[in-house]
């Protein structure tokens, strides 16, 4: 994939913003906010402390979902890898969750969970669990048979096998799954926040923008959401690279 240089990227972005401006001008109503109007709102948001509190609240929910989702995914992924019975038992569950649309979960969860604020978290967990689970399972299966039997014949204790053989083998898959999950979790959480009109959430800002017909706010917040998403994923990649020194030796 060809890398886009900074200067190039800037010009390309400028092009699209100008195009957007044209469209807004042609529409000439408040439904399509212009880049300038959106920019003004954006600047206002960025200079307000409240914005950051809101972003952190939503981020916190996403983080929680990820931690729990990864924990569950790894746990069940490994067990299912080791034990075929568990694996077979989980097949319909995982398939069902994967096939169900996000909004179905959101609506159902809001009906049954008392504290609305938890719904986005549960939603996020439901969404990233199958991804992590499947990847860990696959990673486990992919551990070299040769190395496994070598460990067996040398009677290497289980703990060491897990730490030095299985975990490093599965890590690349886990990391790939995590990166994917971050994006999905982020979007699902915000959607749930919007539907549930959760206090102190990014979703609420979008909801308010819609209700008060402040579409420049909707656009501005959307841009913020995208920026956050990019930052999180970049951050995650850096973190992963730090941990995953084994990446060099694995050919996926």
């Amino acid at each position: 994939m060809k890398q886009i240089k900074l200067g190039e990227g800037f010009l390309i972005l400028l092009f699209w913003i100008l195009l957007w401006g044209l469209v807004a001008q042609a529409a000439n109503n408040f439904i399509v906010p212009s880049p300038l109007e959106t920019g003004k709102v954006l600047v206002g948001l960025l200079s307000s402390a409240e914005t950051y509190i809101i972003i952190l609240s939503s981020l916190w929910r996403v983080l929680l979902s990820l931690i729990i989702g990864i924990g569950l995914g790894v746990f069940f992924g490994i067990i299912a890898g080791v034990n075929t019975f568990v694996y077979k038992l989980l097949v319909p569950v995982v398939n069902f969750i994967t096939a169900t649309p996000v909004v179905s979960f959101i609506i159902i969860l809001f009906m049954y969970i008392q504290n609305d604020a938890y719904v986005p978290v549960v939603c996020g967990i439901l969404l990233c669990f199958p991804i992590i689970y499947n990847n860990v399972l696959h990673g486990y299966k992919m551990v070299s048979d040769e190395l496994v039997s070598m460990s067996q014949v040398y009677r290497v204790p289980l703990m060491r096998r897990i730490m030095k053989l299985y975990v490093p083998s599965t890590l690349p898959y886990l990391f790939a799954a995590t990166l994917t999950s971050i994006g999905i979790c982020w979007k699902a959480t915000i959607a749930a926040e919007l539907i549930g009109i959760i206090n102190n959430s990014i979703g609420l800002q979008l909801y308010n923008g819609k209700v008060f017909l402040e579409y420049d706010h909707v656009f501005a917040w959307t841009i913020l959401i995208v920026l956050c998403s990019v930052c999180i994923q970049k951050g995650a990649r850096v973190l992963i690279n730090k941990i995953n020194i084994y990446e060099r030796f694995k050919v996926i």
Partner: protein
Amino acid sequence: MKISKLSKSFGSLEVIKEFTLEVLDGQVLCLLGPSGCGKSTLLKILSGLDQSYGGQLIGFEDKRMSYVFQESRLIPWLTVSENLKYVLEGHMPDSELDGHIHRFIEKVELNDFKDSYPNTLSGGMKQRVSLARAFSMPHDILLLDEPFQGLNIELKEQLMGLLESLIKQDEKTVIMVTHDLDEAFRLGDSVVKLLGYPITDFQVLKDKTREKVGN
């Protein structure tokens, strides 16, 4: 030790049928046979990797095994020393561990590479690490499965010389499986040719041990 009436099938395919062979303590036994005849399977059963077979293995139960595979089977993200540590840890006090590992890396002449990763080593070097690993592990029996498979002639020569000296120093029972006559005769006290498809019998081609024992 005795392999008594060993039988092994993969489904309907019989690979070993009622095979009996005595193995003497401390001897270097080479089992000859063409590729794919089942000799690797035999070795796997002896090592304990394959637990489903008919017949008995007498005298093998409490023996510690070291195994040299056809492929070097090194963990890619561990260095040479770490690969040895992976199997050795726990078999001796930690304070002795590094010295022990160092000694054996020296024996296979890979001193300069003890902190290198397998992907920087050549095929021959990787196999040397595998040998270091096998010999450094406290063992009663050393099993080798066509260890020089796929290496070129010069390399084979080198490694065979190395293996010879290692075996001499080791003084433990060695069972090696190969299809190469030269290897077998050079390294083995006893050379036995596996007969039959499935393997049912053997033919003694060389037997130094008889002479040793003075039979």
